[in-house]
């Protein structure tokens, strides 16, 4: 008897070809995706994208130009000259990782051996890129202006404390600097006076990037799963016969779809509200800081996600297909969109791919509200994209629903 049931279930499973494909394709795709996200593909031979660094030269001196030229020569960096205000604004919006400002008196400070008037304003949300940038910058600055600055500083020191020291002796010490350079690097860096400023932190006074990532990322991913499950009720109705009975009534097929979508939308809004209220109560997420933007962002995200969930249901013909399909699509979108792994730890190519994901736009929108503290007008484009995703998904769902669900109902 058990063997009969076992054979029957296997037969049923293999009869659903899409279901079978998804069952086996899903783990393969996920393995590939995660390997790619963590840089495991190509054995490390793939070249990293250069970091795009904005630069504002307020000194406009030969030394400042020389520094910019040497930075430009580095393959790790792509320098983009910008005015300070515009550059700061771009970093603030999360468009660029940072701006290096060489302030007035840069050349004079080198000659005088003083701390160099330069500042790196950066987006702390891109921590990993910042770490790489800082390291590249320091090495380059040391090799161009660092030694010159240190020599000037030491010269001043010798003149002050050992007046009358022969120039020959000073030169001997300078020539031996290469031997002791390694040990001086740290102090040299400090002395060079590169001021590091997180733009976001300065303006918002909220420092918990991890919390925002966790709340926004997880909320959207879980929402997708929930909505797919809610939408799956439609397939249950098909199987139980209630969907057919609905079609006997004067309802239009789109009424049924939109009714289901409406329910999914309301539940999505509720789920997001509960998650944000929970984060406020338990973790102190400042949800009232820009309440209007938050409400609009929740509505836009819920619309995009509920439409996406219904889209999945419209594609699937059976519960088994939906289960496989929703798992693979949602996990993929969550992985590339930054729900599972913060975007700033991913390779540049993955960050570019992320824009195809609903999660990306949702998470970035919540970043804009809580982290970047952008005004509503600056967040509206992201909301617009979410609404557009929702509309496109709805349109496709209507077409697919008519084709798949109605057709299958009669088989």
């Amino acid at each position, binding site marked *: 008897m058990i063997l009969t049931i076992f054979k029957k279930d296997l037969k049923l499973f293999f009869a659903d070809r899409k279901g079978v494909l998804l069952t086996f394709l899903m783990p393969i795709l996920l393995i590939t995706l995660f390997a790619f996200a963590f840089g495991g593909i190509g054995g490390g031979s793939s070249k990293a994208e250069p970091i795009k660094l904005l630069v504002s030269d307020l000194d406009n001196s030969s030394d400042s130009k020389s520094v910019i030229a040497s930075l430009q020569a580095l393959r790790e960096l792509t320098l983009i000259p910008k005015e300070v205000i515009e550059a700061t604004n771009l970093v603030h919006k999360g468009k660029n990782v940072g701006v290096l400002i060489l302030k007035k008196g840069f050349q004079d400070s080198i000659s005088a051996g003083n701390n160099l008037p330069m500042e790196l304003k950066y987006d702390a949300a891109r921590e990993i890129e910042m770490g790489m940038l800082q390291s590249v910058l320091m090495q380059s600055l040391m090799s161009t202006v660092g030694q010159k600055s240190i020599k000037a500083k030491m010269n001043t020191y010798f003149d002050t404390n050992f007046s009358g020291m022969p120039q020959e002796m000073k030169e001997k010490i300078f020539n031996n600097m290469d031997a002791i350079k390694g040990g001086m690097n740290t102090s040299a860096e400090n002395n060079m006076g590169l001021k590091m400023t997180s733009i976001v932190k300065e303006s918002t006074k909220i420092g918990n990037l991890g919390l925002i990532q966790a709340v926004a990322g997880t909320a959207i991913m879980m929402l997708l799963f929930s909505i797919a499950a809610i939408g799956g009720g439609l397939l249950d109705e098909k199987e*139980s*016969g*209630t969907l*057919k*009975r*609905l*079609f*006997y*009534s*004067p*309802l239009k097929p789109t009424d049924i779809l939109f009714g289901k979508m409406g329910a999914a939308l309301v539940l999505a809004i509720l789920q997001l509200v509960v998650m944000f209220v929970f984060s406020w109560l338990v973790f102190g997420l400042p949800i009232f800081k820009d309440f209007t933007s938050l409400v609009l962002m929740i509505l836009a995200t819920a619309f995009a996600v509920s439409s996406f969930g219904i889209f999945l249901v419209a594609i699937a013909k059976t519960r088994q297909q939906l289960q496989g399909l929703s798992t693979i699509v949602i996990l993929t979108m969550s992985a590339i969109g930054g729900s599972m792994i913060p975007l700033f730890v991913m390779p540049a190519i993955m960050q570019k791919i992320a824009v195809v994901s609903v999660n990306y736009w949702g998470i970035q929108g919540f970043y804009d509200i809580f982290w970047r503290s952008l005004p509503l007008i600056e967040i509206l484009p992201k909301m617009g994209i979410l609404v557009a995703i929702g509309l496109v998904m709805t349109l496709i769902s209507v077409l697919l629903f008519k084709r798949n669900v109605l057709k299958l*109902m*009669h*088989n």
Partner: protein
Amino acid sequence: MIQVSNLSKSFDTIHAVNNISFSIRKGEVFGLLGPNGAGKSTIINLMSTILKSDEGEILINENDIKQNSTICKQLIGVVPQEISLYDEFSAVDNLIFWGSLYKVPAKILKQRIKNILKLIGLYDRKDDLIKTYSGGMKRRINIAAALLHNPEILFMDEPTVGVDPQSRNKIFEIIETLNQQGITIVYTTHYMEEVERLCKRIAIMDAGKIVAQGTQTELQKQSNVKEAVQITFQLISEVQLEQLQSQLQIKINQSEQKIIIECDVNKDLSNIISICNKSNLRIKDIKLKKANLEAIFLSLTGKQLRD
């Protein structure tokens, strides 16, 4: 009331309904009788507008269902083969939901639900969840859900599948009451006893075609199936048989001690027995072979109804 002309519907290479025509009169119970896969449910789906025909025409109260599907949907109620109810809802909540789809005003709907629940004998259980109901009770609620908008026509697609004899009788009573109230009923089944009990006219279907239609008497004539009596005697000789044949003046088929007499059972049986007694023939057993739908179906299609 319903006029179906040259209707055809195929699914890929399968001709589910193949060029059929029939008409249903107002107030009658019309039976669609045939084995599983004959195309009965497809016809119901076509008449209830959720399937589009490949060819042919269906008129309901002179409304073409392709052009006036909304009007037609208001005229008909459909009792699907599946128990299409929400298990987690109570009976009354289910009925409120299904009734509200037809925009029946709340007050009227409430009153109708009460009346219908009383008609089907489940008023006392109205607040119980459907999942707590027996199969037969669910079937009755399944019927009730199709009546809430006061349809003129009720399509019932095998409404007694899987129910016990007691519930089946209750469902028959409900159908008879509804018909007495003036509702035209189209009833599909593969149980000939149900059609024989309920339907005035019948269409016999097989493999997507209507092989015969009419009243049971008309079907009998079309099929050429005759009623007969099979009599088994203790002992009958050749001479006695010839005498019997001459007295009855009807055709007798003999096999050992049995004879089969084709006759009008109701009219001729007493006469046959009387002649047998007068001829001193001792009857061991009598079997009536009625010209029922089973026999008619067998005669028309060469298959048993439940094949």
